């Protein structure tokens, strides 16, 4: 079981939960996590596929082949506030 932290829009798409507890049954890589998300939270899965939402592991941006170990800090990062069209 891994815990995934959610922020901003991803938190909203998960019914305002700050974290998700997920079972990775078919592998321990980020792409396996994305597969689980696509089943349970298709809107979030789609944003990850479009690369609008990034996955971080231990506070570093991860790639689909990044391995997730027990106890790793995993998070889903929606587009940052300073995205191309935002800005102050």
């Amino acid at each position, binding site marked *: 079981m891994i815990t995934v932290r959610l922020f*901003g829009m991803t938190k909203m798409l998960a019914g305002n939960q700050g974290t998700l507890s997920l079972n990775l049954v078919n592998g321990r890589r980020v792409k396996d996590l994305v597969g689980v998300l696509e089943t349970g939270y298709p809107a979030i899965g789609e944003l990850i596929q479009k690369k609008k939402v990034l996955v971080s592991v231990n506070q570093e941006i991860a790639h689909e082949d990044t391995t997730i170990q027990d106890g790793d800090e995993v998070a889903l990062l929606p587009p940052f506030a300073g995205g191309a069209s935002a800005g102050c």
Partner: protein
Amino acid sequence: MSMQQPAGDDAKFVRVQREDFSVDAEINRVRGRSKRIGGISIFLGTARDRSKGRDVDRITFEHYEGMAQKTLREIRERALKDFDIIEVAILHRYGEIGIGENIVLIVVGAEHRAEAFRACTWAIDELKRITPIWKLEHTPEGEVWVEEHP
């Protein structure tokens, strides 16, 4: 020129905080680093009342505690390494922020203005590009996470 940074400078010159900051105090903190500073450039981001054609009543910033600070420390270190500057302070607020209030501050001290301007522009652009901070705009029609409709 990059100075050796004693431990603990990160906490003074890189902060993510709920409370407001004093622009003067932060300028003086940078100014106090070295008598060689001859130019200080700042960027101050404030909350505006309009966004993409919508009125905005107030803004809430959410950040990823730990990763946000780490990212800002890395931006400071890269700025000190890649530009001919003496010090840079980077501050960002989180929580609810009213219209007109301070959001983000970059202060760069250098011997000469050109590098101070260049480093300041680079630092705020990089902050906006890679720092895990999110903006929720409160509008008369409801709440909108910026970039909610990709």
